[in-house]
């Protein structure tokens, strides 16, 4: 019904919208939007070009370089990237490493955050001070001892070693997020649970952790993003184990071996970027809220 009545007067709707866009108050913003839209198209052009180049022929990439859209679709580049350049394997490695690191990091930062937020234990002040001091530690600073200690623990050329080292990176911001959130939850909730006979673990896993869902979502996404995109550590952990490479390391290796296979490289890049881009587009709100949290806190 409504669709009919709306559909019967399309011209009225268009003109109303046009009036809305170009009203005296709005027209400067409409102009600004058009300008920014043009810039935004340039902005995403490299990514569009990559997706387009991944579907061109190996020579077509060079002859039609400035037009991002392929005339006919050539999926064989994906076969080459997936099978010959082993991006199928790399993608699986990246998924395994990322999911494991996210799981370990969420659990450990939530537990540490809860304890720091709620209990006075010996050395808490010191722990918090040390954590804050290491809020920002560049990988370039710690990487040599991390590799050496992993070597001594026989964890260097192994997937588990990579997972542990990535989970052991500071992740201080995540802990502080949990601390802040748990501190904001009224104590009465826990006390009520304790009166009902709940123990320490029940209180945490049944009451507090479910309440902290928004923080868990943020920490999950931020850790996922950081781990998926990580490069330095997976690079030095897989020097002698090419089969354990993640997509970021695999990309460098592929470019080193086949720098002229542009359509293959573009296909590999698309394989590497697509999962994280899709995740972002679906969960955009949470990504942006999580990242802007850094400013507000």
């Amino acid at each position, binding site marked *: 019904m409504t669709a009919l009545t709306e559909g019967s007067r399309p011209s009225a709707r268009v003109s109303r919208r046009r009036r809305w866009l170009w009203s005296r108050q709005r027209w400067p913003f409409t102009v600004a939007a058009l300008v920014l839209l043009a810039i935004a198209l340039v902005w995403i052009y*490299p990514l569009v070009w990559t997706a387009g180049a991944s579907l061109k022929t190996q020579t077509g990439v060079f002859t039609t370089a400035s037009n991002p859209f392929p005339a006919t679709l050539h999926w064989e580049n994906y076969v080459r990237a997936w099978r010959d350049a082993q991006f199928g394997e790399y993608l699986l490695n990246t998924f395994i490493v990322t999911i494991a690191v996210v799981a370990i990091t969420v659990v450990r930062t939530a537990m540490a955050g809860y304890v720091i937020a709620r209990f006075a234990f010996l050395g808490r002040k010191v722990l918090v001070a040390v954590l804050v001091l290491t809020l920002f530690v560049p990988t370039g600073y710690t990487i040599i001892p991390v590799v050496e200690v992993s070597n001594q623990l026989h964890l260097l050329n192994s997937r588990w070693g990579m997972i542990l080292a990535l989970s052991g990176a500071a992740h201080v911001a995540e802990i502080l997020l949990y601390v802040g959130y748990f501190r904001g939850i009224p104590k009465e909730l826990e006390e009520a649970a304790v009166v009902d006979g709940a123990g320490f673990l029940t209180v945490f896993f049944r009451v507090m952790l479910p309440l902290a869902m928004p923080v868990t979502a943020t920490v999950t996404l931020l850790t996922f993003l950081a781990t*998926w995109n990580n490069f330095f550590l997976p690079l030095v952990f897989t020097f002698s184990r090419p089969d354990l490479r993640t997509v970021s390391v695999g990309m460098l290796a592929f470019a080193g071996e086949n720098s002229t296979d542009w359509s293959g490289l*573009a296909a590999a890049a698309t394989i590497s970027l697509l999962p994280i881009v899709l995740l972002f587009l679906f969960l955009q709100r949470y990504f942006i809220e999580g990242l802007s949290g850094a400013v507000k806190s």
Partner: protein
Amino acid sequence: MSEISARLAPAEARRSRAAGPPESGAGTAQRRRVRRRRRRRFELYIWLFLAPTLLLYGVYTLYPIVASYWYSMLDWNGFDAHGTFTGFSNYAAVLKDRYFWNSFKVTVLFTAVTVPVRVGLALVVAVVLNNRLMPLRRLLRTAFFLPVITTSAVVGIVMQMILDPSSGPLNLSMEKLGLIHHGVDYLGSSSNALWSVMGVYIWKWFGITLIYWLAALQTVPAELVEAARVDGASGVRVFRHVTVPVLKPFLVIITLLTLVDTLQVFDLLLSMTNGGPQFHTEVLEIYIYRFAFAASVPQLGYASAAAVLFGLFAAVITAMQVVGVRFSRRSARSGS
């Protein structure tokens, strides 16, 4: 941090005081015993909960921070089990190396150019996008943010193709438009390379600074803007007298967050230029990587000395961040 414990301590005192007085005699003693037993069990759980963090963080963050200092005093190739102690000679050698100073200069220059550009441009775009009269705000925000979530190392390879002098789409498009007559060698020429990677870096991370500014603009009280409008203030005046004062403390925070970001450019630069041509884009992290991992005979002690110096540089910037945030918070509090 003293703030945290100060806030918590009175709460505990209050609770124990509240529970204390009404009881008397044997009841209190028993209660106290029960509570002590419970606290001891809690203590166990507390350390159990901290254990994963203490273990992982200890091994992979704290130990490396401390061990770097020890490593930096060794002559060590990484193949032998142990290095030989050489005191501060690595530091002397690093500080004498003109390539170290080159990479230091590149790092500082990179930071000094990209941070103001990111912070300034992002503020302009954020102010425009924050206006409710603006059409397509969400779409535009998404587009500008998209490069942030992409993998730097992959983007580095992609950009090698995009910026290619002979068949890269950027050069070909510009030739078609008649802006240039022959391809510009963005990454291969020593006079262009650093500027080009700065451009790509700004493109890659602009979106995050934009999101920071948008978050900051959200804190501008809408009633205040409305009130100023009703009083007949123009858009520019509202911005100057209402928005700018609110944004000022955020300027410090956002600049410092952006600054800290900029120390981590390893992924993008290693994949895009590998520090070249002729070390023109070699930032400190690539310098460290070159001596520790890319050399046929690694010089772990020497690289660690460079890493410690880099760590100190990063620590100075982090300290600036902490001080800056404290300062801006205080001024925000006294201002409001």
